[in-house]
């Protein structure tokens, strides 16, 4: 039978052993509660499709960093300072893999061309429709923005109407190819946004076009 006394002694021994175990490692004191919550923020610039990076300016309090190289980064850690950092691709994959996986596909634009002063597509542009339809079919919740243009032959109002007719003609072709009409938005910009700038009344086949953005 173990007396109360003995139990107490055993407990003391046990506590002593615990303390001895702790003393072998560095003792970490709990830090005082910070005024603002400590942060663990990371900012990284990625290379674009051309391999180059644009620029992001990170501002934190009075500090500012410009990140303009691929994988240039910045961190804000416990102490709250903004620090420049080069972020390895492996860390980007670990931290942002799932996030990057959810990025929607890049919007793509196609340009189709029209016969002079009409809403008839050129023969080559009719063939391009197969490719455009395939791109449309590939995308989730697809949106199609169709914008018609003209060259500078004829009055402004005529070209406004003609550019809209051309956009409507493209919409008709897309719907015939099986695209839902309510997914398509059309607009006409007349002669205001030429692909190739010309003087007024100059015929220019490259400006008689419709731009189709699929996103």
């Amino acid at each position, binding site marked *: 039978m173990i007396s109360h006394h003995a139990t107490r002694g055993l407990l003391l021994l046990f506590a002593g052993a615990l303390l001895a175990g702790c003393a072998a490692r560095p003792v970490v004191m709990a830090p005082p509660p910070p005024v603002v919550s400590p942060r663990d923020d990371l900012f*990284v610039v990625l290379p674009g499709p051309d391999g180059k990076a644009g*620029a992001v300016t990170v501002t934190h309090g009075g500090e500012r960093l410009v990140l303009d190289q691929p994988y240039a980064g910045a961190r804000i850690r416990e102490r709250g300072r903004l620090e420049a950092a080069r972020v390895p691709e492996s860390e980007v994959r670990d931290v942002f893999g799932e996030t990057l996986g959810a990025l929607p596909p890049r919007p793509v634009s196609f340009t189709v061309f029209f016969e002079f002063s009409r809403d008839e597509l050129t023969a080559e542009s009719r063939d391009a429709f197969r490719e455009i339809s395939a791109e449309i079919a590939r995308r*989730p919740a697809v949106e199609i923005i169709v914008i018609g243009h003209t060259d500078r032959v004829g009055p402004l109002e005529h070209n406004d109407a003609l550019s809209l007719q051309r956009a409507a003609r493209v919409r008709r072709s897309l719907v015939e190819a099986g695209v839902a009409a309510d997914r398509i*938005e059309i*607009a006409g910009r007349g002669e205001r946004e030429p692909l190739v700038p010309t003087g007024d009344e100059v015929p220019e086949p490259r400006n008689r076009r419709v731009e189709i953005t699929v996103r």
Partner: protein
Amino acid sequence: MVSRSWTAAVAAIALALATLGTTAPVLAGDAGMIKVATGEAWIVRAGARLPARVGDKVQTSDVIATGAKGAVGITFADDSRLSIGPNSVLAIDRFVFDSTTHAGASETSLRKGTLAAVSGRLARQSPGAMKVKTPAATLGVRGTEFLIRTGEAD
């Protein structure tokens, strides 16, 4: 002046009525459309929490949130794209885009979690038109792809 602004107001109302209840591409008033939604994902709008689905439109003052296995990808009217990963909260503070002039503003806040972003026509047209905030920092964007993680230290 007065008659012109009246005409604009009537046109805006007509446009809003014409687009009610359709699945048309994003127009004035809409910021963008959800193209990717996996796991638990929500749109918090006017105090209500709706499940986020592919094809849903998002607008200024929506908050997009994900759970432990959730992710959401949005394409905006200016062709910019944003996605958030698991356990993330993104607020769309302001989105205005004029599709003719490409002028406007895109302001979002990543309150927690991870964000991937590819800027679009707004940032190309005027540097500074696209901003992303975190609780600690503000990012001004000039035509690029970038990533943000924000969180309190463990």
